[in-house]
């Protein structure tokens, strides 16, 4: 039994509605209580980098606003009516019904409603994301099951070089847009054609292209593994699972080489791309060296409080590239038991034989208590959410908000991924330190 949660760092399965919002011209239809949509949007988007409502988010999302009537007598009719009118009022290419707790507890036959619209030719998909079933990482995977089973069509021949990019969760990660854009750029730099799906681009059209890819790239510790496996079963598309979000030269180079091997790209092409990027990257790193070696403005040990994407990606960069020392890392999403060993193994193999302790769990109180028990000899660097800024101040540490909720920053296209992202992260970390006393 998972314990209570103080200071939320993710939301419920219905949070997957924001993954739908992230696909241009896809429209979520919520079948849930009146407040779910507002709360989930507020937590994942508004209070998290101020990401906004976008094309069809926030209060513009069609919703049944289920009340007593639907709870007592069932909500199928209300849903049917809402979907029918959504198809008239809203301008979109894909409609995804997502259910909340009320519908899933009451047991509405939502599948039947969706099927009846599909059989009359409307692109309507459903997914049962009642919040009690799990967090939004879990909900995001449920969404993909639904898209694969109910929307994607076999494509015939694969398009050489086309790669579907599966990685961070839209909105949950306030840096998702910039991150996906940057990873796509890296793939292009070695001659591949990335299919990004979320964010500015082709939206639903890119979703339709998914079965045509040469392979699926899963850039994630575990989220989405089920998805790429299902895509392999259904469409025969192979996948590459690369667990670490690449930040900085070490990991980005490794990542590009792994992708190159999977895609059958000549190694000279990959090496040439890496050389080019590293030359530019190290030009800036060299500039930063003076600050690091000529001043006292350095952090002590570092802590990350983030989901497994960022806890792992940031830790690798901070150890392998920036030369910092880990204190303890907190992984905040509910990682299914079977994936824990995989993540544990990654946290036990950094360069120079370094390891870092890892804690699992979403409860902010546990983070606070665990940090209070430790002795920090120098001012620690704490990369977490805006909640953790309070603890960071108590510990006289340096806080930088990198994980949901990031409510102290406006985030537009910023990313910490790749070469450029690592430079941005270095700037951000040392700007926190340098601005802390002047």
């Amino acid at each position, binding site marked *: *039994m*998972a*314990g*209570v*949660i103080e*200071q*939320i760092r*993710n*939301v*419920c399965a*219905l*949070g997957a509605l924001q993954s739908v919002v992230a696909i241009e011209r896809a*429209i979520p239809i*919520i079948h*849930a*209580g*009146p*407040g*779910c*949509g*507002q*709360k989930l*949007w*507020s*937590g*994942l988007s*508004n*209070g*998290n980098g101020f990401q906004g*409502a976008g*094309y*069809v988010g*926030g*209060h*513009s*999302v*069609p*919703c049944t*606003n*289920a*009340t007593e009537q639907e*709870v007592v007598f069932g909500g199928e009719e209300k849903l049917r*009516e*809402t979907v029918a009118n*959504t198809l*008239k*009022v*809203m*301008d979109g290419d894909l409609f995804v019904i997502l259910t*909340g*707790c009320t519908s899933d507890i009451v047991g509405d036959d939502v599948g039947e409603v969706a099927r009846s619209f599909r059989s009359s030719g409307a692109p309507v998909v459903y997914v049962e994301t009642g*919040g*009690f079933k*799990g*967090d939004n990482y879990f909900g995001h995977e449920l969404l993909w099951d639904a898209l694969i089973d109910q929307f994607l069509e076999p494509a015939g021949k694969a398009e050489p070089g086309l790669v579907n990019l599966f990685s961070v969760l839209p909105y949950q990660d306030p840096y998702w847009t910039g991150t996906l854009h940057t990873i796509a750029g890296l793939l292009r730099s070695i001659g591949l054609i990335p299919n990004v799906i979320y964010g500015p681009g082709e939206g639903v059209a890119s979703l339709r292209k998914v079965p045509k890819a040469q392979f699926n790239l899963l850039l994630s510790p575990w989220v989405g593994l089920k998805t790429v496996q299902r895509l392999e079963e259904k469409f025969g598309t192979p996948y590459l699972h690369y667990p670490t979000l690449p930040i900085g030269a070490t990991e980005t180079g490794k990542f590009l080489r792994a992708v190159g091997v999977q895609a059958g790209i000549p190694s000279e092409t990959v090496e040439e791309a890496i050389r080019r990027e590293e030359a530019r990257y190290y030009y800036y790193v060299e500039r930063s060296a003076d600050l690091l070696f000529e001043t006292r403005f350095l952090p002590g040990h570092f802590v990350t409080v983030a989901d497994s994407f960022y806890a792992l990606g940031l830790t690798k960069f901070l150890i392998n590239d920036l030369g910092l020392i880990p204190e303890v890392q907190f992984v905040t999403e509910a990682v299914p038991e079977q994936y824990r060993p995989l993540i544990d193994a990654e946290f036990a193999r950094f360069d120079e034989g370094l390891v870092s302790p890892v804690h699992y769990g979403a409860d*902010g*109180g546990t983070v606070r208590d665990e940090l209070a028990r430790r002795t920090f000899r120098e001012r620690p660097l704490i990369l977490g959410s*805006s909640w953790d800024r309070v603890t960071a*101040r108590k510990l006289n540490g340096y806080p930088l908000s990198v994980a949901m909720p990031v*409510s102290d920053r406006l985030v537009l296209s910023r990313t910490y991924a790749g070469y450029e992202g690592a430079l941005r992260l270095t700037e951000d970390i040392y700007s926190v330190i340098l601005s802390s006393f002047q």
Partner: protein
Amino acid sequence: MAINLDITEAPTRETRLGSITGYSGTLKDLVARTGCGASIKNGDRTFSQASSCSSGCAQTLLAGIVDAAVVNHAPIGCAGDTVYHNIANQYGRFYREWGNKNIQLVNTNMEEQDTVFGGTEKLREGIREAFRRFAPKAIFVTTSCASGIIGDDIKGVISELTDEVPVPVIQVSCEGFRSKVWASGFDAAFHAILTGIVKPPVRKRPELVNMVNFRGSARAYIARLFGELGLVPRFVVPFATVEELATVSEAAVTATVCTTLGSYFGTALEENYGVPYVKAIPPHGVAGIEAWLRGIGAAVGKESEVEALIDKERAATDADLAELRRRFKGKRAVLGMGPSYAQSYLGVLEELGIEVLHAASWHYDPRYDYGEQPPAIVRAASRENDITFSVGDQQLYEITNTLSRLKPDLYFSRHPGSSVWAAKLGITAVPVIDEYTAFGHRGLVNFGWRIVDALTNRNFVTKLADRVKLPYSGWWYGQDPYAFLDQEAV
């Protein structure tokens, strides 16, 4: 009917007040249909967009009490609003120079097995943890759709823990599905405070005013106004302590900046402890503040002091007001706000010389708990000109359609997630986020100058509107904005 403090749950606004979320017609018609002896049936929609729920409204108040804790008995998603409550908390603490601290709230993280076998074990753990972590002076247990539908025995768990958790633990019934009117959540929170925290007066404090508000940005202004009357404000609920709430019964009078927010609490304090509740129109704009101050003055016997104060405030702002009216000549606006603000801003905009073409109210209370129609709407409806008026739980498709037809110069709205859509249409949108916007003579003038600024540089909105598309079909723009509202013929 008097407020009943012997029951655990405040009945919803639909049940108590006949409140509605669906209507389209005119201001005068609505007032006539909801006058003495009349009744109105709610209009249902066959299409709707995401609204808001009671639980968010309850938690925004309760999570702001500085030394209490909230246990949100729900799956984690229902705590999605807490991120924003914490932003408001940090902002308020910063301006009070209180130092940095997070809200004190735990979510019980209900899961699948809890919906099958019951979630009381989780709730027990939640209450224990809240007590252990925060050492609070009181604990509020907010319910959710999940805990409500499975029927967890909240009262039972609370009474089991009486010895172990020696502070008041109070149930707050704010399940989202029970009411279409999210403001029912305010009443749920106030009901919990009234039944679990407020004590009978030990002594009377003739100088003390319960000032019911949200974030309290106008503290200095109000302290000055009240100071001239020999009164001292106590701002509740956010940023108050449990002790301050416990002694609200000792105050001389209760006033509120928002009648949607404060009427349940004010009425209950009047009925149960004889603390008069000021039933005037809200204190926005000249007419608002003057009626409101007179209401306070009458309650505490300071009528002549109030008149002197009003003269002074008028003198300080008359010239600006005349200048603003000159500048706004010919400007037309639409407004969309919660009922108290929608009603009082009809007056505010009239005072600024801005013509209102249409007003949308996020819900409508035909009467307040003390039995009368909201005074601000009665006042607005007594003007010669009628306007179209709609009631909807922030249904943006209706608002967007209305705005695209009327093409006003300005859109005024309150509640996050509304103004931006007008901006995307290229309309100058002025959000009224702070509850003290246009408060009093001076607030009105400041608000006026803010509108002048918004109209002076429209670059952001015009360029944005050129490039973005809203999510509605061409078909929809050709329909009546209230085509999906089923209501009796108007």
